[in-house]
């Protein structure tokens, strides 16, 4: 799948090792912007309008689920696809918060990449047919 390099993915993640892994997995194909807390995530999401937000839940200031809720509530940001990526068994909470997908840490590389691609595909097709939410994929 050819994805233009300009596609922006916002990542809210504290763990430097997970950041490095995400960079190595996604960095060749996408533009990654890392932030370290929920407030910065909301701010960056509103400012840069990424295609995807990959959010850990346990981040400072505002947790990842609240970030998700805020963005999905706001008409300007609700189209951002949100992948909750956490060590917590929080699939249901993520779904309730309006997330498009959930993956549990640690990173299973193939599943993680496939999930990001699926979210981008959804985003592309929903942009063309006006559908804002299609069937997302969920995995624990």
């Amino acid at each position, binding site marked *: 799948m050819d994805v233009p390099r300009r596609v922006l993915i916002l990542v809210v993640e*504290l*763990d*430097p*090792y*997970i950041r490095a892994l995400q960079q190595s997995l996604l960095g060749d194909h996408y533009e990654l912007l890392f932030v370290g807390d929920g407030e910065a995530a909301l701010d960056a999401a509103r400012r840069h309008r990424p295609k995807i937000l990959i959010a850990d*839940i*346990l981040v*400072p200031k505002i*947790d990842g*689920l*609240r970030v998700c809720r805020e963005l999905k509530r706001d008409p300007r940001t609700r189209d951002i696809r949100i992948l909750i990526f956490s*060590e*917590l*068994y*929080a699939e249901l*909470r993520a779904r309730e918060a309006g997330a498009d997908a959930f993956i549990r*840490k*640690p990173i299973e590389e193939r599943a993680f990449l496939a999930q990001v691609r699926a979210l981008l595909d959804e985003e592309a097709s929903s942009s063309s047919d006006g559908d804002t939410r299609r069937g997302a994929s969920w995995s624990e």
Partner: protein
Amino acid sequence: MERVTSGIVPLDEILGGGVPTNSLVVVAGAPGTGKTILAQQFVFANATPDARALYLTTLSEPRAKTIRYLQQFSFFDQDRLIGERPAILYGDLAEPIRTQGFEALSETVGALLDEHRPRLLVIDSFKALRDLVPSDVQARRVLFDLASRLAARSCTTLFVGEYVRDELERLPEFAIADGILHLVNRPTGTRDERYLRVHKLRGSGFRAGEHAFRISSDGLSVFPRLVTPAEPTAYHASDERVGTGLAGLDAMLGGGLRRGSATLVRGPSGSGKTLLGLHFLHAGAVAGEHGLLVSFQENPSMIRFITSAIGLDARELDASGHLTSLYLSPVELNVDDVIQRITAVLAAKPIRRVVVDSLLDLEAAVSSDPMRFRSYFYALIQRFAVEGIAAMLVVGTEIGAGPRDLADAEYTADTVIDLRYAPADAPGRESARNIVVLKSRGVAHATTANRLRVGARGLEVGGVEHRRP
């Protein structure tokens, strides 16, 4: 003094109510001893949105891993970690310390305290951080600074670390600590025994010695060491007699066992020890007395079978609610666990008779420490005496051999009954059993042996049929 609960009631009892509020406590122990679980129990028992807990992982286990494994415990509650006002915050000191060094510890933690204002702080592992500094002098300086910073705040702190025994006396963190909890995992035969010891608790009394604990999905279950009173507790020694259920034996004892006394019943396998215990409990139940059977030998089904086989009414015994059975497998026996369970039954029911079958199983569970068995035995006997409980303690001896050396137990017991077994020595001849009262304190008892027979209705002594209800 205000206390911070550990979240584990028996541990709080050991600590005199919990660790003192605003104290600095080191939780020490080798890897795998349960330190992190204990620290997490402190956190989940105390943290609220208004009194938050800050849990800082370091260079030992990444935060993600800590949380991943933590979720398997029943005390874990995801709600406490998220939302607008989370009660528990998890952070990671690894990155700042890795980049700025151990010298930055105090300032880094200080900044986090300023930001989150926690009432409970855990640094796990603190040992991993202090191992970064080559000299104790350097460590002491940083530690003193951090301890002073913490002392200025209303914040209770736990330093968790993989310290070994000799470090507890040597390293500066133990000098500045207000409390030290040491967790030990001691391999014993094919199993491991876990112990917890309080080494220090400034400004507070605590229960000294080793306290056993177990780790399950509920976290740590702690069994406080049974404390033997330095002076025997004062109590009224009763003259009241308690029937054994065997009229012949009661006659040998001049009317039965004394209320509140402890009787050791010893004999080889098959000599009738368990049966004697069952007669004793049955006689009590029939008289409306509550009894407790602590058995490591026979499971409840087997007990019911034996009871019925000797003509005692097992259903009647069950239905009366007068018999409580504690069956504990001798394979994974933990003596502190046993004591706690016995104590719990004594607290819940008006138990008047107890049978422990057998004492050797209890002794084997503390075989590594004979002194411990003696103190447990003595403390149990004291407890029974104070509460007016007549206790029968069964001890097995090997066929043909002399009784196993339980001299202390025999000395402590008020009454010792010896069952002897002579196997049939020729075809067609019967095996013979004898019963003799070796001692019975304050009782004019028979000194001669009597025949003991096992009939369709249980035991009979000296040709006298046992008493039927």
